[in-house]
């Protein structure tokens, strides 16, 4: 899950980047609207967290320009909490609105909800054969037994699970799993896939040589034991 955080307040930006990375999201930061818009147009983010008042281009302006091109989910973060501000923000195309100061739990829950809303399967639990993914608790169980899993591995699994039945290219996986600071030429992806196969069974994620990875559509009825 790759997120763009556009926030001009350096301490808050640093703090949120850290939390989101610890949650296993791949996060890019932008210091103002202009940089944020450039990055948002360059890369397909899963969610954009957007501050309202920023130099060079404020959040509303950036949202307005972005909405002319892309429908990436956007959550506005702002210290302005008047009804009018919220209405304007939502009407410009924001998908959610969070008023500063906020609790991290709420930010993360809203983030999950926003991701879920933009996935084809709306449920909170995804079942793949005997593997069950709880997208709220971000936990994975195989045959009813919970498997220890890292944040990055979880994100990879969830991404493939949401796109199950379709081949996901390595480039796409890199774009959604790793932020701009990570070397896309590394074999990190292979390492994560290997770990997931070890924990959840070799059959779960299949390699399509030269194309990418795929989780086959699970037959009905073999769900959670």
């Amino acid at each position, binding site marked *: 899950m790759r997120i763009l955080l556009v926030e*001009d*307040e*350096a*301490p*808050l930006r*640093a*703090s*949120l980047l*850290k*939390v989101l990375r*610890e949650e296993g999201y791949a996060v890019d930061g932008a210091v*103002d*609207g202009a940089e944020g818009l450039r990055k948002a147009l360059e890369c397909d983010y899963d969610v954009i967290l957007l501050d309202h*008042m*920023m*130099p*060079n*281009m*404020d959040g509303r302006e950036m949202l307005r320009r972005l909405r002319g091109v892309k429908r990436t989910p956007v959550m506005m973060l702002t*210290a*302005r*909490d*008047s009804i009018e501000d919220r209405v304007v923000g939502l009407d410009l195309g924001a998908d959610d609105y969070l*008023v*500063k*100061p*906020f*609790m*991290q*739990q709420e930010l993360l829950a809203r983030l999950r909800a926003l991701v879920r809303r933009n996935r084809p399967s709306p449920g909170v639990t995804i079942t793949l054969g005997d593997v069950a993914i709880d997208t709220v608790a971000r936990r994975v169980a195989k045959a009813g037994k919970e498997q220890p899993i890292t944040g990055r591995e979880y994100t990879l699994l969830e991404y493939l699970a949401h796109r199950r039945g379709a081949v996901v290219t390595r480039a796409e996986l890199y774009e959604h799993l790793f932020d701009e600071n990570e070397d896309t030429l590394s074999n990190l992806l292979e390492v994560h896939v290997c770990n997931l196969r070890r924990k959840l069974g070799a059959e779960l994620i299949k390699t399509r040589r030269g194309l990418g990875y795929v989780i086959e559509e699970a037959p009905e009825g073999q769900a959670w034991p």
Partner: protein
Amino acid sequence: MAVIFHSIRWRILAWNFGLLATTVTVLLVAFHRHERANRTQEVDLRLRQLMTTSMGAVGEVVPGVAGPRPTAATGAANPARPRPNDNPVQRKAKAEQTVRELERDGCRLLVADPGKDAVLFTNLAATAEANELLAACVAQLAPPGAEPGPARPVDLIFALGTRRILLHRPPGPTFVAFILDSAGLEAELRALAWKLFAAGAALTGLGCAIGWVLAGRSLRPLDRIAATAEGIAAGDYERKIAVEDTESELGRLAVVLNTTFGRMNAARERVTQFTADASHELRTPLAVILSDSQGALRQERTPAEYQAALEAIQRSALRMKAISDALLELAQGDAGRPVAADACDLADLADEAVALLGRLARDHEAKLVAQLDGAPVKGDAGRLGRVILNLMVNAILHNPAGVTVAVTTGVREGRALLTVADDGRGIAAEDLPRIFDRFHRADASRSRHTGGAGLGLAIVKQAVEAHGGTIAVTSELGRGTTFTVALPAA
């Protein structure tokens, strides 16, 4: 009902009614009296004519009506003139009328019977009415028999009941009463009075109706003003009273109210903006504190991580403190905190500021230039020092590296002047009027790269004005900005 009499429209109507009714009553009563006098005069004239003709019938000529009584001398001197007894009217009357003589209480009474107009004493002794009339006539005269009568003929007219009586008293004990019944006249006058009353009532009613309509029309703007004011009170602050005629009294009132409401709305908007800004400025560091503390508490951290989180929290807390200090200073200034009146010199304060800012200027590669002539003032040295520091720090921080900041002090025309000029990027003309507003920053997006919450210049302006001074700013984009502070020189 009580509500009705509080209504201006009703009060105007009441006054209108009162004035109109009084005026109409006075006019109509006067008219009625005049009419009565006229009619009575007509009756009296008829009485006199009657007297003339009747007395002619008995050989006496009454002067003034039927011509002067001729004296023997003039009658002899002018034989061409006809004798009074030959007056054709009198002659005719003589033939038509009967005059009877009556005796009563020693008075000789001649009673004329001139025909249909008069009440006749045909059987005077017999009727009580005749007696009464006679008694009234006698009462009008001097006691009969007491005197021989006037030397010249005397006429006396008076009213008795519905009758009008002319008493003619030639010399001697004789008198003649001519009586006309004026009952018809009285009835006519009563009918006239009723007609006048009806006309007056109609006139008053019409006047009141017109007054009611006019009062309603002239008071309609008041209703509009009230409706608008109610709307504003209900929260529709942008409403304006529609003014058609700005020169009328209510038009001017509406203009004044519009201006007042506009100002109040502007003040309300400023307060709202200020509150929103203050809450934004305080919430942003609060968000950092919450985020960092929650992030640190999510899981076990290394001591270095805890330390970093605490430092970030402390920085945010310090920023909140700075903002609340600034707000407090502004609030105290607003409350009219008394200003100290210590003798100090702007040159010394500027000199100190230059020394204090040496390091900041080096860090930002700014050049400080000072040309300081004595500028003694009375005031709070600490506050004035902060004014100078504030202006200089702004000039250093808000401009790109390499900027030159020039400070000058001096006295001109009894004013102690301080200027802080830079050759930096300048301020856009549309921003200039607002730079002293609280929380206003030239960069509307509230850039935090330069620090501060946008309260510095507001505090500067407040401090300068508290010292009885003025602050002015001129700026040109790309050329730089100059702040000029003028204080009363000590």
